[in-house]
Protein backbone atom coordinates (compact mmCIF):
# COMPACT_ATOMS: atom_id res chain seq x y z
CA UNK A 1 0.00 0.00 0.00
CA UNK A 2 1.48 3.32 -1.01
CA UNK A 3 1.86 6.21 1.38
CA UNK A 4 -0.76 8.09 -0.58
CA UNK A 5 -3.32 5.37 -0.05
CA UNK A 6 -2.55 5.33 3.68
CA UNK A 7 -2.98 9.06 3.81
CA UNK A 8 -6.30 8.80 2.15
CA UNK A 9 -7.33 6.03 4.53
CA UNK A 10 -6.28 8.26 7.41
CA UNK A 11 -8.30 11.14 6.05
CA UNK A 12 -11.21 8.74 5.68
CA UNK A 13 -11.39 8.54 9.44
CA UNK A 14 -13.30 11.78 9.50
CA UNK A 15 -14.85 11.25 6.11
CA UNK A 16 -18.17 13.04 6.29
CA UNK A 17 -19.75 13.65 2.92
CA UNK A 18 -19.66 17.29 1.93
CA UNK A 19 -23.40 18.05 2.32
CA UNK A 20 -23.22 16.72 5.85
CA UNK A 21 -20.16 18.79 6.64
CA UNK A 22 -22.04 21.83 5.43
CA UNK A 23 -25.11 20.91 7.44
CA UNK A 24 -23.06 20.36 10.57
CA UNK A 25 -21.25 23.63 10.05
CA UNK A 26 -24.60 25.37 9.67
CA UNK A 27 -25.94 23.71 12.82
CA UNK A 28 -22.96 24.82 14.87
CA UNK A 29 -23.26 28.34 13.44
CA UNK A 30 -26.99 28.41 14.14
CA UNK A 31 -26.48 27.23 17.70
CA UNK A 32 -23.77 29.82 18.24
CA UNK A 33 -25.96 32.51 16.71
CA UNK A 34 -28.83 31.37 18.91
CA UNK A 35 -26.63 31.65 21.99
CA UNK A 36 -25.53 35.15 21.05
CA UNK A 37 -28.93 36.44 20.01
CA UNK A 38 -30.73 35.06 23.00
CA UNK A 39 -31.36 37.14 26.07
CA UNK A 40 -28.64 36.82 28.62
CA UNK A 41 -30.33 34.36 30.93
CA UNK A 42 -30.99 31.89 28.09
CA UNK A 43 -27.38 32.06 26.93
CA UNK A 44 -26.40 31.61 30.55
CA UNK A 45 -28.61 28.54 30.80
CA UNK A 46 -26.95 26.98 27.77
CA UNK A 47 -23.45 27.80 28.96
CA UNK A 48 -24.26 26.58 32.44
CA UNK A 49 -25.52 23.27 31.08
CA UNK A 50 -22.35 22.64 29.08
CA UNK A 51 -20.16 23.70 32.01
CA UNK A 52 -22.06 21.46 34.44
CA UNK A 53 -21.61 18.45 32.15
CA UNK A 54 -17.88 19.09 31.72
CA UNK A 55 -17.38 19.56 35.46
CA UNK A 56 -19.36 16.36 36.15
CA UNK A 57 -17.13 14.40 33.78
CA UNK A 58 -13.98 15.88 35.30
CA UNK A 59 -15.11 15.16 38.87
CA UNK A 60 -16.29 11.69 37.85
CA UNK A 61 -12.94 10.82 36.35
CA UNK A 62 -11.10 12.17 39.37
CA UNK A 63 -13.34 10.13 41.67
CA UNK A 64 -12.90 7.05 39.52
CA UNK A 65 -16.56 6.72 38.45
CA UNK A 66 -16.80 5.30 34.97
CA UNK A 67 -17.91 7.63 32.18
CA UNK A 68 -20.66 5.14 31.47
CA UNK A 69 -22.67 6.27 34.47
CA UNK A 70 -22.27 9.92 33.58
CA UNK A 71 -23.45 9.26 30.04
CA UNK A 72 -26.50 7.55 31.50
CA UNK A 73 -26.99 10.30 34.08
CA UNK A 74 -27.34 13.26 31.69
CA UNK A 75 -30.45 12.20 29.73
CA UNK A 76 -31.81 10.39 32.77
CA UNK A 77 -31.61 13.43 35.04
CA UNK A 78 -33.00 15.80 32.42
CA UNK A 79 -36.00 13.60 31.65
CA UNK A 80 -36.50 12.83 35.32
CA UNK A 81 -36.56 16.48 36.39
CA UNK A 82 -38.50 17.88 33.45
CA UNK A 83 -40.81 15.01 32.57
CA UNK A 84 -41.44 12.80 35.59
CA UNK A 85 -41.20 15.25 38.51
CA UNK A 86 -43.78 17.60 36.92
CA UNK A 87 -46.39 14.87 37.26
CA UNK A 88 -45.61 14.56 40.95
CA UNK A 89 -46.08 18.33 41.31
CA UNK A 90 -49.32 17.98 39.37
CA UNK A 91 -50.54 15.36 41.83
CA UNK A 92 -49.53 17.48 44.79
CA UNK A 93 -51.31 20.60 43.59
CA UNK A 94 -54.45 18.64 42.74
CA UNK A 95 -54.80 18.13 46.52
CA UNK A 96 -54.74 21.87 47.25
CA UNK A 97 -57.44 24.47 47.17
CA UNK A 98 -57.61 27.44 44.85
CA UNK A 99 -56.71 30.72 46.50
CA UNK A 100 -56.42 34.27 45.33
CA UNK A 101 -52.73 34.55 46.02
CA UNK A 102 -49.39 33.97 44.45
CA UNK A 103 -49.17 31.03 43.77
CA UNK A 104 -52.93 30.59 43.37
CA UNK A 105 -53.27 27.45 45.48
CA UNK A 106 -53.14 26.60 49.17
CA UNK A 107 -50.03 25.04 50.73
CA UNK A 108 -50.15 21.33 51.46
CA UNK A 109 -48.86 21.76 54.98
CA UNK A 110 -50.15 24.47 57.28
CA UNK A 111 -48.74 25.78 60.50
CA UNK A 112 -51.25 24.59 63.06
CA UNK A 113 -51.39 24.81 66.86
CA UNK A 114 -48.90 21.97 67.25
CA UNK A 115 -46.47 22.11 64.34
CA UNK A 116 -47.19 21.50 60.67
CA UNK A 117 -50.45 19.94 59.71
CA UNK A 118 -51.31 18.16 56.53
CA UNK A 119 -53.91 20.26 54.71
CA UNK A 120 -54.37 18.35 51.46
CA UNK A 121 -57.73 16.93 50.53
CA UNK A 122 -59.43 15.04 47.78
CA UNK A 123 -62.02 17.80 47.54
CA UNK A 124 -61.18 18.57 43.90
CA UNK A 125 -61.71 14.96 42.90
CA UNK A 126 -64.99 14.90 44.76
CA UNK A 127 -65.96 18.02 42.86
CA UNK A 128 -65.09 16.31 39.55
CA UNK A 129 -67.16 13.30 40.52
CA UNK A 130 -70.19 15.37 41.52
CA UNK A 131 -70.33 17.73 38.56
CA UNK A 132 -71.71 15.75 35.58
CA UNK A 133 -69.89 18.12 33.19
CA UNK A 134 -66.57 16.41 33.85
CA UNK A 135 -67.79 12.83 33.52
CA UNK A 136 -69.50 13.61 30.22
CA UNK A 137 -66.39 15.45 28.99
CA UNK A 138 -64.24 12.38 29.69
CA UNK A 139 -66.74 10.06 28.04
CA UNK A 140 -67.19 12.27 25.02
CA UNK A 141 -63.39 12.62 24.65
CA UNK A 142 -63.02 8.85 24.58
CA UNK A 143 -65.91 8.52 22.12
CA UNK A 144 -64.50 11.16 19.77
CA UNK A 145 -60.96 9.77 20.00
CA UNK A 146 -62.14 6.20 19.39
CA UNK A 147 -64.34 7.13 16.42
CA UNK A 148 -61.55 9.15 14.85
CA UNK A 149 -59.08 6.32 15.39
CA UNK A 150 -61.40 3.90 13.63
CA UNK A 151 -61.85 6.29 10.71
CA UNK A 152 -58.08 6.84 10.50
CA UNK A 153 -57.57 3.08 10.42
CA UNK A 154 -60.11 2.65 7.61
CA UNK A 155 -58.44 5.38 5.53
CA UNK A 156 -54.86 4.58 6.52
CA UNK A 157 -54.85 0.82 6.03
CA UNK A 158 -55.38 0.74 2.25
CA UNK A 159 -52.86 3.55 1.88
CA UNK A 160 -50.21 1.78 3.96
CA UNK A 161 -50.87 -1.47 2.09
CA UNK A 162 -50.61 0.24 -1.28
CA UNK A 163 -47.30 1.91 -0.34
CA UNK A 164 -45.86 -1.30 1.10
CA UNK A 165 -46.70 -3.19 -2.11
CA UNK A 166 -45.32 -0.49 -4.43
CA UNK A 167 -41.97 -1.03 -6.15
CA UNK A 168 -39.02 1.23 -5.40
CA UNK A 169 -38.51 4.15 -5.96
CA UNK A 170 -42.24 4.83 -6.00
CA UNK A 171 -42.50 3.46 -2.48
CA UNK A 172 -40.01 5.97 -1.05
CA UNK A 173 -41.70 8.86 -2.83
CA UNK A 174 -45.16 7.87 -1.59
CA UNK A 175 -43.81 7.44 1.92
CA UNK A 176 -42.27 10.91 1.75
CA UNK A 177 -45.63 12.27 0.60
CA UNK A 178 -47.27 10.79 3.70
CA UNK A 179 -44.63 12.24 6.03
CA UNK A 180 -44.41 15.67 4.36
CA UNK A 181 -47.66 17.15 5.78
CA UNK A 182 -46.54 16.03 9.23
CA UNK A 183 -43.56 18.37 8.92
CA UNK A 184 -45.67 21.38 8.07
CA UNK A 185 -47.40 23.23 10.84
CA UNK A 186 -50.07 21.26 12.63
CA UNK A 187 -51.86 24.44 13.69
CA UNK A 188 -51.96 25.76 10.13
CA UNK A 189 -53.24 22.46 8.75
CA UNK A 190 -56.13 22.54 11.22
CA UNK A 191 -56.70 26.17 10.31
CA UNK A 192 -56.88 25.20 6.61
CA UNK A 193 -60.04 23.23 7.36
CA UNK A 194 -61.78 26.36 8.66
CA UNK A 195 -61.52 27.85 5.18
CA UNK A 196 -62.80 24.63 3.63
CA UNK A 197 -65.68 23.92 6.01
CA UNK A 198 -67.12 27.37 6.70
CA UNK A 199 -70.64 28.28 5.69
CA UNK A 200 -69.20 30.39 2.88
CA UNK A 201 -66.19 28.10 2.57
CA UNK A 202 -64.63 26.28 -0.34
CA UNK A 203 -66.60 23.01 -0.05
CA UNK A 204 -69.98 24.68 0.26
CA UNK A 205 -69.08 26.99 -2.60
CA UNK A 206 -68.15 24.05 -4.79
CA UNK A 207 -71.23 21.99 -3.93
CA UNK A 208 -73.57 24.93 -4.56
CA UNK A 209 -71.81 25.74 -7.81
CA UNK A 210 -72.33 22.17 -9.04
CA UNK A 211 -75.95 22.37 -7.91
CA UNK A 212 -75.77 19.32 -5.63
CA UNK A 213 -77.06 21.44 -2.75
CA UNK A 214 -78.81 24.76 -2.75
CA UNK A 215 -78.40 25.55 0.93
CA UNK A 216 -74.92 25.65 2.48
CA UNK A 217 -74.22 22.71 4.79
CA UNK A 218 -73.30 23.42 8.39
CA UNK A 219 -69.98 21.64 8.77
CA UNK A 220 -67.79 23.90 10.86
CA UNK A 221 -68.34 23.85 14.63
CA UNK A 222 -69.77 20.35 14.61
CA UNK A 223 -68.47 17.02 15.92
CA UNK A 224 -68.03 16.00 12.29
CA UNK A 225 -65.41 18.73 11.82
CA UNK A 226 -63.60 17.52 14.94
CA UNK A 227 -63.47 13.92 13.62
CA UNK A 228 -62.21 15.23 10.32
CA UNK A 229 -59.54 17.36 11.99
CA UNK A 230 -58.26 14.52 14.16
CA UNK A 231 -58.17 12.01 11.29
CA UNK A 232 -56.46 14.53 9.07
CA UNK A 233 -53.71 15.55 11.48
CA UNK A 234 -53.00 12.12 12.93
CA UNK A 235 -53.22 10.05 9.73
CA UNK A 236 -49.42 9.81 9.27
CA UNK A 237 -49.15 8.34 12.79
CA UNK A 238 -51.55 5.60 11.69
CA UNK A 239 -49.94 4.95 8.31
CA UNK A 240 -46.29 4.75 9.38
CA UNK A 241 -46.51 1.86 11.88
CA UNK A 242 -48.92 0.04 9.55
CA UNK A 243 -46.51 0.49 6.67
CA UNK A 244 -43.53 -0.66 8.77
CA UNK A 245 -45.49 -3.80 9.59
CA UNK A 246 -46.95 -4.52 6.15
CA UNK A 247 -43.67 -4.01 4.30
CA UNK A 248 -42.22 -6.95 6.23
CA UNK A 249 -45.13 -9.21 5.28
CA UNK A 250 -43.81 -12.27 3.47
CA UNK A 251 -45.33 -12.39 -0.02
CA UNK A 252 -44.86 -16.17 -0.06
CA UNK A 253 -47.58 -16.50 2.58
CA UNK A 254 -50.07 -14.70 0.34
CA UNK A 255 -49.05 -16.85 -2.62
CA UNK A 256 -49.40 -20.01 -0.57
CA UNK A 257 -52.89 -18.96 0.50
CA UNK A 258 -53.99 -18.25 -3.05
CA UNK A 259 -52.37 -21.48 -4.34
CA UNK A 260 -54.45 -23.33 -1.79
CA UNK A 261 -57.53 -21.75 -3.31
CA UNK A 262 -58.25 -18.86 -0.95
CA UNK A 263 -59.88 -15.85 -2.55
CA UNK A 264 -58.07 -12.52 -2.16
CA UNK A 265 -60.67 -11.42 0.39
CA UNK A 266 -60.29 -14.62 2.42
CA UNK A 267 -56.49 -14.28 2.21
CA UNK A 268 -56.73 -10.76 3.48
CA UNK A 269 -58.87 -11.65 6.46
CA UNK A 270 -57.04 -14.85 7.42
CA UNK A 271 -53.42 -13.95 6.62
CA UNK A 272 -52.72 -10.25 6.10
CA UNK A 273 -54.99 -8.78 8.75
CA UNK A 274 -53.94 -11.04 11.66
CA UNK A 275 -50.26 -10.61 10.81
CA UNK A 276 -50.59 -6.83 10.72
CA UNK A 277 -52.29 -6.68 14.12
CA UNK A 278 -49.22 -5.23 15.93
CA UNK A 279 -49.12 -2.43 13.35
CA UNK A 280 -52.84 -1.81 13.79
CA UNK A 281 -52.50 -1.62 17.57
CA UNK A 282 -49.45 0.66 17.44
CA UNK A 283 -51.02 2.99 14.88
CA UNK A 284 -54.34 3.11 16.72
CA UNK A 285 -52.70 3.93 20.03
CA UNK A 286 -50.58 6.66 18.43
CA UNK A 287 -53.81 8.29 17.23
CA UNK A 288 -56.08 7.49 20.15
CA UNK A 289 -53.88 8.61 23.08
CA UNK A 290 -53.02 12.14 21.96
CA UNK A 291 -56.53 12.60 20.52
CA UNK A 292 -58.08 12.14 23.98
CA UNK A 293 -56.36 15.25 25.31
CA UNK A 294 -56.60 17.24 22.07
CA UNK A 295 -57.23 20.94 22.55
CA UNK A 296 -56.50 22.77 19.29
CA UNK A 297 -58.83 20.77 17.06
CA UNK A 298 -61.99 21.05 19.20
CA UNK A 299 -61.15 24.70 19.91
CA UNK A 300 -60.86 25.64 16.24
CA UNK A 301 -63.21 23.22 14.49
CA UNK A 302 -65.62 22.14 17.22
CA UNK A 303 -68.78 23.87 18.27
CA UNK A 304 -69.59 25.26 21.71
CA UNK A 305 -71.17 21.95 22.65
CA UNK A 306 -68.23 19.81 21.52
CA UNK A 307 -67.11 18.61 24.91
CA UNK A 308 -63.52 17.42 25.12
CA UNK A 309 -61.50 17.12 28.27
CA UNK A 310 -58.43 18.91 26.89
CA UNK A 311 -60.59 21.92 26.29
CA UNK A 312 -62.18 21.70 29.74
CA UNK A 313 -58.72 21.58 31.30
CA UNK A 314 -57.60 24.57 29.22
CA UNK A 315 -60.62 26.64 30.25
CA UNK A 316 -60.28 25.59 33.88
CA UNK A 317 -56.71 26.83 33.82
CA UNK A 318 -56.80 29.89 31.58
CA UNK A 319 -60.35 31.18 32.10
CA UNK A 320 -61.39 30.00 35.57
CA UNK A 321 -57.77 30.19 36.80
CA UNK A 322 -58.45 27.30 39.14
CA UNK A 323 -55.09 25.52 39.11
CA UNK A 324 -55.97 22.78 41.62
CA UNK A 325 -59.11 21.71 39.74
CA UNK A 326 -57.19 21.82 36.44
CA UNK A 327 -54.56 19.59 38.07
CA UNK A 328 -57.18 17.13 39.24
CA UNK A 329 -58.68 17.03 35.72
CA UNK A 330 -55.16 16.36 34.40
CA UNK A 331 -54.46 13.57 36.89
CA UNK A 332 -57.68 11.77 35.93
CA UNK A 333 -56.76 12.20 32.25
CA UNK A 334 -53.33 10.79 33.02
CA UNK A 335 -54.89 7.63 34.42
CA UNK A 336 -57.05 7.44 31.32
CA UNK A 337 -54.04 7.43 28.97
CA UNK A 338 -51.64 5.37 31.06
CA UNK A 339 -53.31 2.05 30.23
CA UNK A 340 -53.13 2.50 26.42
CA UNK A 341 -49.55 3.82 26.77
CA UNK A 342 -48.50 0.66 28.63
CA UNK A 343 -50.21 -1.44 25.99
CA UNK A 344 -48.40 0.39 23.21
CA UNK A 345 -45.11 -0.06 25.04
CA UNK A 346 -45.60 -3.80 25.42
CA UNK A 347 -46.56 -4.21 21.75
CA UNK A 348 -43.43 -2.31 20.73
CA UNK A 349 -41.22 -4.32 23.05
CA UNK A 350 -42.57 -7.55 21.58
CA UNK A 351 -41.92 -6.30 18.05
CA UNK A 352 -38.36 -5.42 18.97
CA UNK A 353 -37.92 -8.83 20.50
CA UNK A 354 -39.20 -10.46 17.32
CA UNK A 355 -36.73 -8.59 15.13
Amino acid at each position, binding site marked *: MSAGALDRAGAGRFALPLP*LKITFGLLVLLAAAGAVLLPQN*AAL*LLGGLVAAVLVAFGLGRAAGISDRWLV*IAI*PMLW*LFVFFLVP*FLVLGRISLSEAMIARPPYSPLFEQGADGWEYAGSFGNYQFLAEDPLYASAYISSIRIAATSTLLALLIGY*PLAYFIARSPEPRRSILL*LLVILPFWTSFLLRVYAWIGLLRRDGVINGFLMWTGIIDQPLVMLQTDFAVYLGIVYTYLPFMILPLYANLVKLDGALLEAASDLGASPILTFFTVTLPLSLPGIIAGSMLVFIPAIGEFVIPALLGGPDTLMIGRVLWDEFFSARDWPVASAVAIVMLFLVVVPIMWLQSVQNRQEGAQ
Partner: protein
Amino acid sequence: MRGSWFLPAASFLGFAFLYIPILSLIIYSFNDSQLVTVWGGFSTRWYGELLNDAQILGAAWISLKVGVLSATIATVIGTLAAFVLTRFGRFRGRLLMTGMVTAPLVMPEVLIGLSLLLLFVSMELALGWPSERGMVTVVIAHSTFCAAYVAVIAQSRLRDMDDSLEEAARDLGAGPVRVFFDITLPVIAPALVSGWLLAFTLSLDDLVIASFVSGPGASTLPMVIFSKVRLGVSPDVNALATLIILIVAVAVSVAGWVLYRQSKRG
Protein backbone atom coordinates in the same frame (compact mmCIF):
# COMPACT_ATOMS: atom_id res chain seq x y z
CA MET B 1 -57.60 -6.76 -1.71
CA ARG B 2 -60.09 -7.11 -4.48
CA GLY B 3 -59.37 -6.03 -8.00
CA SER B 4 -56.57 -3.85 -9.17
CA TRP B 5 -58.55 -0.62 -8.94
CA PHE B 6 -59.48 -0.55 -5.27
CA LEU B 7 -56.07 0.10 -3.74
CA PRO B 8 -54.88 2.79 -6.15
CA ALA B 9 -58.24 4.53 -5.98
CA ALA B 10 -58.33 4.45 -2.17
CA SER B 11 -54.74 5.66 -2.00
CA PHE B 12 -55.43 8.45 -4.45
CA LEU B 13 -58.35 9.61 -2.29
CA GLY B 14 -56.17 9.34 0.79
CA PHE B 15 -53.46 11.52 -0.71
CA ALA B 16 -56.05 13.99 -1.99
CA PHE B 17 -57.40 14.20 1.57
CA LEU B 18 -53.90 14.94 2.85
CA TYR B 19 -53.07 17.61 0.30
CA ILE B 20 -56.28 19.46 -0.66
CA PRO B 21 -56.35 21.58 2.52
CA ILE B 22 -52.71 22.54 2.02
CA LEU B 23 -53.33 23.43 -1.62
CA SER B 24 -56.35 25.54 -0.71
CA LEU B 25 -54.23 27.47 1.80
CA ILE B 26 -51.64 28.21 -0.87
CA ILE B 27 -54.19 29.21 -3.51
CA TYR B 28 -56.16 31.51 -1.24
CA SER B 29 -53.00 33.20 0.02
CA PHE B 30 -52.86 34.83 -3.42
CA ASN B 31 -56.50 35.89 -3.30
CA ASP B 32 -56.95 39.63 -3.40
CA SER B 33 -60.34 39.48 -1.69
CA GLN B 34 -60.78 39.42 2.05
CA LEU B 35 -63.61 36.90 1.71
CA VAL B 36 -62.72 33.26 1.48
CA THR B 37 -64.93 32.08 -1.34
CA VAL B 38 -64.85 35.18 -3.44
CA TRP B 39 -61.92 35.14 -5.79
CA GLY B 40 -60.80 38.74 -6.08
CA GLY B 41 -58.00 38.12 -8.51
CA PHE B 42 -54.35 37.25 -8.08
CA SER B 43 -52.44 39.41 -5.67
CA THR B 44 -49.53 39.27 -3.28
CA ARG B 45 -50.92 41.94 -1.00
CA TRP B 46 -51.24 39.60 2.00
CA TYR B 47 -47.53 38.87 1.80
CA GLY B 48 -46.90 42.60 1.92
CA GLU B 49 -49.19 42.96 4.93
CA LEU B 50 -47.44 40.06 6.59
CA LEU B 51 -44.08 41.79 6.26
CA ASN B 52 -45.51 44.89 7.93
CA ASP B 53 -47.08 43.03 10.83
CA ALA B 54 -44.69 43.72 13.70
CA GLN B 55 -46.53 41.36 16.06
CA ILE B 56 -46.16 38.36 13.74
CA LEU B 57 -42.56 39.17 12.85
CA GLY B 58 -41.59 39.56 16.49
CA ALA B 59 -43.24 36.28 17.43
CA ALA B 60 -41.60 34.53 14.47
CA TRP B 61 -38.22 35.76 15.65
CA ILE B 62 -38.85 34.43 19.16
CA SER B 63 -40.05 31.11 17.78
CA LEU B 64 -36.96 30.82 15.60
CA LYS B 65 -34.63 31.39 18.52
CA VAL B 66 -36.54 28.99 20.75
CA GLY B 67 -36.57 26.42 17.94
CA VAL B 68 -32.82 26.54 17.27
CA LEU B 69 -31.94 26.32 20.94
CA SER B 70 -34.48 23.61 21.80
CA ALA B 71 -33.58 21.49 18.78
CA THR B 72 -29.89 21.64 19.68
CA ILE B 73 -30.44 20.68 23.33
CA ALA B 74 -32.99 18.01 22.31
CA THR B 75 -30.54 16.49 19.81
CA VAL B 76 -27.81 16.19 22.46
CA ILE B 77 -30.12 14.68 25.08
CA GLY B 78 -31.99 12.48 22.62
CA THR B 79 -28.79 11.11 21.09
CA LEU B 80 -27.34 10.34 24.50
CA ALA B 81 -30.55 8.59 25.53
CA ALA B 82 -30.62 6.57 22.30
CA PHE B 83 -26.96 5.65 22.68
CA VAL B 84 -27.47 4.52 26.25
CA LEU B 85 -30.54 2.45 25.34
CA THR B 86 -28.96 0.69 22.35
CA ARG B 87 -25.34 0.25 23.43
CA PHE B 88 -25.22 -0.08 27.20
CA GLY B 89 -27.10 -3.36 27.58
CA ARG B 90 -28.78 -3.81 30.92
CA PHE B 91 -28.40 -1.21 33.63
CA ARG B 92 -30.42 -0.09 36.59
CA GLY B 93 -33.08 2.37 35.49
CA ARG B 94 -33.25 1.12 31.92
CA LEU B 95 -36.98 0.52 32.10
CA LEU B 96 -37.53 3.98 33.57
CA MET B 97 -35.50 5.54 30.78
CA THR B 98 -37.37 3.63 28.06
CA GLY B 99 -40.63 4.82 29.54
CA MET B 100 -39.50 8.44 29.81
CA VAL B 101 -38.32 8.39 26.19
CA THR B 102 -41.53 6.87 24.78
CA ALA B 103 -44.19 8.56 26.89
CA PRO B 104 -43.72 12.17 25.66
CA LEU B 105 -44.45 10.98 22.10
CA VAL B 106 -48.06 10.16 22.91
CA MET B 107 -48.68 12.14 26.09
CA PRO B 108 -51.42 14.72 25.47
CA GLU B 109 -49.82 18.15 25.20
CA VAL B 110 -52.11 19.73 27.79
CA LEU B 111 -50.70 17.31 30.37
CA ILE B 112 -47.07 18.09 29.53
CA GLY B 113 -47.77 21.82 29.45
CA LEU B 114 -49.72 22.07 32.70
CA SER B 115 -47.39 19.78 34.66
CA LEU B 116 -44.27 21.63 33.50
CA LEU B 117 -45.79 25.00 34.35
CA LEU B 118 -46.58 23.79 37.85
CA LEU B 119 -43.01 22.49 38.16
CA PHE B 120 -41.61 25.87 37.16
CA VAL B 121 -43.88 27.67 39.62
CA SER B 122 -42.89 25.30 42.44
CA MET B 123 -39.21 25.64 41.53
CA GLU B 124 -39.53 29.40 41.65
CA LEU B 125 -41.03 29.17 45.14
CA ALA B 126 -38.44 26.72 46.41
CA LEU B 127 -35.27 27.79 44.60
CA GLY B 128 -36.01 31.27 43.31
CA TRP B 129 -35.39 30.05 39.76
CA PRO B 130 -36.76 30.50 37.09
CA SER B 131 -37.67 33.96 38.39
CA GLU B 132 -40.06 34.57 35.52
CA ARG B 133 -41.55 32.48 32.78
CA GLY B 134 -40.57 33.26 29.24
CA MET B 135 -38.18 32.05 26.62
CA VAL B 136 -36.06 29.95 28.98
CA THR B 137 -38.98 27.95 30.28
CA VAL B 138 -40.30 27.40 26.74
CA VAL B 139 -36.86 26.18 25.64
CA ILE B 140 -36.69 23.72 28.54
CA ALA B 141 -40.19 22.42 27.81
CA HIS B 142 -39.55 22.04 24.08
CA SER B 143 -36.15 20.42 24.57
CA THR B 144 -37.77 17.81 26.79
CA PHE B 145 -40.53 16.63 24.49
CA CYS B 146 -38.44 17.02 21.32
CA ALA B 147 -35.63 14.92 22.85
CA ALA B 148 -38.02 11.96 22.78
CA TYR B 149 -38.52 12.31 19.01
CA VAL B 150 -34.77 12.63 18.39
CA ALA B 151 -34.19 9.57 20.57
CA VAL B 152 -36.60 7.48 18.48
CA ILE B 153 -34.89 8.43 15.21
CA ALA B 154 -31.37 8.00 16.59
CA GLN B 155 -32.31 4.69 18.21
CA SER B 156 -33.52 3.12 14.97
CA ARG B 157 -30.36 4.28 13.17
CA LEU B 158 -28.10 2.96 15.95
CA ARG B 159 -29.89 -0.36 15.88
CA ASP B 160 -29.47 -0.74 12.11
CA MET B 161 -25.82 0.24 12.27
CA ASP B 162 -23.25 -2.49 11.91
CA ASP B 163 -21.64 -2.57 15.37
CA SER B 164 -18.66 -4.57 14.12
CA LEU B 165 -17.24 -1.20 13.03
CA GLU B 166 -17.23 -0.01 16.63
CA GLU B 167 -15.85 -3.32 17.82
CA ALA B 168 -13.02 -3.16 15.28
CA ALA B 169 -12.10 0.35 16.45
CA ARG B 170 -12.10 -0.80 20.07
CA ASP B 171 -9.93 -3.82 19.16
CA LEU B 172 -7.50 -1.45 17.51
CA GLY B 173 -7.18 0.35 20.82
CA ALA B 174 -9.52 3.34 20.51
CA GLY B 175 -11.14 4.49 23.74
CA PRO B 176 -14.94 4.73 24.04
CA VAL B 177 -15.01 8.50 23.52
CA ARG B 178 -12.83 8.23 20.42
CA VAL B 179 -14.97 5.38 19.06
CA PHE B 180 -18.07 7.48 19.54
CA PHE B 181 -16.72 10.57 17.79
CA ASP B 182 -14.76 8.78 15.05
CA ILE B 183 -17.07 5.91 14.17
CA THR B 184 -20.54 6.16 15.67
CA LEU B 185 -21.23 9.86 15.19
CA PRO B 186 -20.30 10.05 11.47
CA VAL B 187 -22.43 6.97 10.76
CA ILE B 188 -25.53 8.21 12.56
CA ALA B 189 -25.02 11.85 11.51
CA PRO B 190 -27.77 11.86 8.83
CA ALA B 191 -30.25 10.57 11.39
CA LEU B 192 -29.20 13.29 13.80
CA VAL B 193 -29.66 15.94 11.13
CA SER B 194 -33.19 14.76 10.46
CA GLY B 195 -33.75 14.49 14.21
CA TRP B 196 -32.63 18.09 14.68
CA LEU B 197 -34.87 19.26 11.85
CA LEU B 198 -37.84 17.37 13.27
CA ALA B 199 -37.22 18.83 16.72
CA PHE B 200 -36.94 22.29 15.19
CA THR B 201 -40.25 22.03 13.32
CA LEU B 202 -42.00 20.53 16.36
CA SER B 203 -40.80 23.41 18.50
CA LEU B 204 -41.78 25.96 15.86
CA ASP B 205 -45.22 24.38 15.68
CA ASP B 206 -46.11 23.89 19.32
CA LEU B 207 -49.02 25.93 20.61
CA VAL B 208 -50.30 24.14 23.69
CA ILE B 209 -47.12 23.58 25.71
CA ALA B 210 -45.79 27.07 24.92
CA SER B 211 -49.10 28.66 25.98
CA PHE B 212 -48.77 27.07 29.41
CA VAL B 213 -45.11 27.70 30.14
CA SER B 214 -44.55 31.01 28.38
CA GLY B 215 -44.82 34.35 30.09
CA PRO B 216 -45.61 37.93 29.11
CA GLY B 217 -43.48 39.25 26.28
CA ALA B 218 -42.54 35.80 25.01
CA SER B 219 -45.47 34.87 22.78
CA THR B 220 -44.37 32.37 20.16
CA LEU B 221 -45.61 32.39 16.58
CA PRO B 222 -48.26 29.68 17.08
CA MET B 223 -49.65 31.60 20.06
CA VAL B 224 -50.09 34.72 17.91
CA ILE B 225 -51.54 32.73 15.00
CA PHE B 226 -53.99 30.99 17.32
CA SER B 227 -55.27 34.24 18.79
CA LYS B 228 -55.75 35.55 15.24
CA VAL B 229 -57.50 32.53 13.69
CA ARG B 230 -59.72 31.91 16.69
CA LEU B 231 -61.72 34.85 15.41
CA GLY B 232 -61.97 33.38 11.91
CA VAL B 233 -60.00 33.18 8.70
CA SER B 234 -57.42 35.87 8.19
CA PRO B 235 -55.75 36.03 4.78
CA ASP B 236 -52.33 37.07 6.03
CA VAL B 237 -52.18 33.82 7.99
CA ASN B 238 -52.70 32.07 4.64
CA ALA B 239 -49.65 33.90 3.32
CA LEU B 240 -47.66 32.94 6.39
CA ALA B 241 -48.75 29.31 6.01
CA THR B 242 -47.66 29.28 2.39
CA LEU B 243 -44.22 30.57 3.34
CA ILE B 244 -43.86 27.97 6.07
CA ILE B 245 -44.98 25.17 3.73
CA LEU B 246 -42.49 26.34 1.12
CA ILE B 247 -39.60 26.39 3.61
CA VAL B 248 -40.54 22.97 4.97
CA ALA B 249 -40.89 21.44 1.50
CA VAL B 250 -37.43 22.69 0.52
CA ALA B 251 -35.85 21.56 3.79
CA VAL B 252 -37.43 18.10 3.64
CA SER B 253 -36.42 17.65 0.00
CA VAL B 254 -32.82 18.58 0.80
CA ALA B 255 -32.78 16.26 3.81
CA GLY B 256 -34.34 13.47 1.74
CA TRP B 257 -31.77 13.98 -1.00
CA VAL B 258 -28.89 13.85 1.52
CA LEU B 259 -30.24 10.66 3.07
CA TYR B 260 -30.80 9.13 -0.37
CA ARG B 261 -27.23 9.91 -1.46
CA GLN B 262 -26.01 8.53 1.84
CA SER B 263 -27.92 5.25 1.47
CA LYS B 264 -26.67 4.78 -2.10
CA ARG B 265 -23.09 5.17 -0.90
CA GLY B 266 -23.40 3.00 2.19
